């Protein structure tokens, strides 16, 4: 690159000589038709990307192949059975739905609340930094550890209600249940849905908190300032401006944790999900049951339960070979439910994103 300089302007000779055209042609001509490294690198990256899809396809097709003849309406709507051809996943479907519902009922308010506190209210003190680091670390704790935690805290409640427990000593008699508006709440919770769901919500809380924090951090401070300058209180700013703008991010955290919550097996086995179940929680196994006894809906959280992955785990462990096919059918139903729930969450998120239109 040569531009006319002061001296060349002064001398009046400002013509820039073009390079001889033969040189130019030669320098532009490509040396070979392919550049091996470029080609190889691109192909390797492509292979890496496609291999994950290929493995997924392989897995699903192997499972589907095995499930042929077992995945049918009867399988979806029947309770479990000793005989593989009469086994069904209905108890697991209902149990998993309850589990997801109760888990998020507990985890969303606590998770979003914690994130709002950490991002919007907390000052940058050492204790706050300590909490932040802890939450990030908790996301990496193995799920079985949460199972043991849940067993101590929710299933046994530190043996507070045991015969020699602290409550018995203070009250003078052992308390084993609390009856509230006709609902019998066992104390300690024991191997009930609510104990499982609370354990599961501990497991997904770090994911929700961290992702919600990210979402809150992504909202420009100018939005908050504009709201405060209009005379909005802190709470009004958070309620009407910050949280609505963070909904897509919160939904993403929920999508991530649904996948985790629906597939977790180990902690639920520890906290007592039943492997072989011929019942639905609260006795609500069909629409007729619901009409007959609507109060069962409130009793269900304090009932025994099973979930799909635990059922599948149980089937896989059966000696009879046909149960492997039953397990395969269960896996397909589990994947189906997962896709369905994620689809719903993604739809909600997209609708909110459109409404926000940054």
């Amino acid at each position, binding site marked *: 690159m040569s531009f006319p300089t002061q001296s060349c302007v002064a001398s009046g000779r400002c013509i820039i000589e073009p390079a001889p055209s033969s040189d130019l042609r030669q320098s532009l001509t490509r040396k070979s038709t392919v550049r091996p490294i470029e080609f190889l690198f691109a192909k390797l990256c492509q292979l890496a990307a496609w291999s994950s899809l290929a493995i997924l396809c392989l897995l699903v097709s192997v499972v589907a192949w095995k499930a042929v003849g077992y995945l049918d309406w009867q399988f979806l709507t029947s309770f479990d059975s000793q005989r593989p051809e009469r086994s069904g996943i209905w108890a697991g479907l209902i149990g998993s739905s309850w589990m997801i519902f109760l888990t998020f009922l507990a985890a969303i308010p606590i998770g979003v609340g914690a994130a709002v506190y950490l991002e919007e209210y907390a000052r940058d003190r050492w204790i706050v930094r300590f909490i932040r680091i802890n939450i990030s670390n908790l996301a990496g704790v193995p799920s079985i550890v949460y199972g043991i935690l849940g067993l101590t805290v929710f299933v046994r409640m530190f043996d507070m209600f045991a015969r020699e427990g602290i409550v018995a000593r203070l009250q003078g008699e052992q308390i084993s249940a609390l009856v509230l508006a006709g609902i019998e709440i066992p104390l300690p919770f024991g191997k009930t849905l609510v104990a499982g769901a609370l354990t599961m919500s501990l497991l997904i809380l770090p994911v929700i908190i961290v992702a919600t924090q990210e979402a809150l951090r992504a909202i420009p401070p100018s939005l908050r300032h504009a709201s405060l300058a209009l*005379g909005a209180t802190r709470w009004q700013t958070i309620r*009407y401006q910050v949280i609505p703008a963070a909904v897509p991010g919160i939904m993403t955290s929920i999508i991530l944790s649904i996948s985790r919550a629906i597939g977790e097996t180990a902690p639920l086995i520890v906290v007592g999900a039943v492997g072989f179940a011929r019942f639905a929680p609260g006795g609500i196994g069909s629409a007729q049951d619901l009409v007959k006894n609507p109060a069962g809906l409130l009793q269900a959280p304090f009932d025994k339960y099973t979930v799909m992955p635990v059922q599948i785990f149980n089937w896989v462990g059966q000696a009879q070979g046909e149960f492997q096919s039953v397990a395969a059918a269960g896996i397909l139903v589990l994947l189906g439910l997962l896709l369905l729930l994620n689809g719903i969450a993604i739809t909600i998120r997209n609708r909110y994103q459109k409404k926000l239109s940054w």
Partner: protein
Amino acid sequence: MAHSFTNLMNDRAAADRARGGGADSLSDPVTGDATARPIKIETRKMDFFYGTTQALFDINVQIPAKSVTALIGPSGCGKSTFLRTLNRMNDIVEGARHTGEILLEGINIDGPEIDVVALRKRIGMVFQKSTPFPKSIFENVAFGPRLTGIRDRRELDEIVTNCLKRAALWDEVKHRMSDSAMALSGGQQQRLCIARALATNPDVLLMDEPASALDPASTARIEDLIFELKANYTIIIVTHNMQQAARVSDTTAFFYQGHLVEMGDTQQLFTKPQEKHTEDYITGRFG
């Protein structure tokens, strides 16, 4: 040097004529005594600190009501900080504090009995970067009134229409009130923010470089708007643009390195600055 002063004031005269307010607006705020108006806001011996760094030194200012006061000065001179102390937006900055008094019509706004939320409703603010909420045009303007508990749709409609008209935006948006405010142009967004600030029924408007991110045509519209609004509002505007200060303001205050160097009638300050620093700044020797 004298040439550039004349230019500035010619600018202003031209702008006044364009608005059809030539003689009137020239005679009163420019040649008349600005301090003859009642004082809206006054600061006494205000020192301002960010942590241990002092940002403002002994600021004594009297801002006349229903007029435009421009704050000028190089970047980092403290004029935006000063502006934000007036509606206590610095409260949300960690480590920010000040000494001395800030009086709104004689009432100390830092007094323990003062509700900062009520104060900010009385003192509206418009930011440098337009900050529409990611909601509809209607909801943006209605946000303030809703906060005060107005639920009646007809009442809200009336307020929103009224404020959009006063912000000279109504004709452009009246057919698309439910569209997202983010779809408006930069200049329209800024006027929407002004309408939104007017909706809480303030009597003071603080503007932090409201036109610095806008094209010349949008800037002219904002300046016209400021000129119209000063009949009913006390306006304090931070600006980097000297021509703008000369065009729109009645009083100008020059800040330099945290000190209030000079404050006075805009025409006098631009034509006969008392301080050497002021003269150097407005003639472009530094800043």
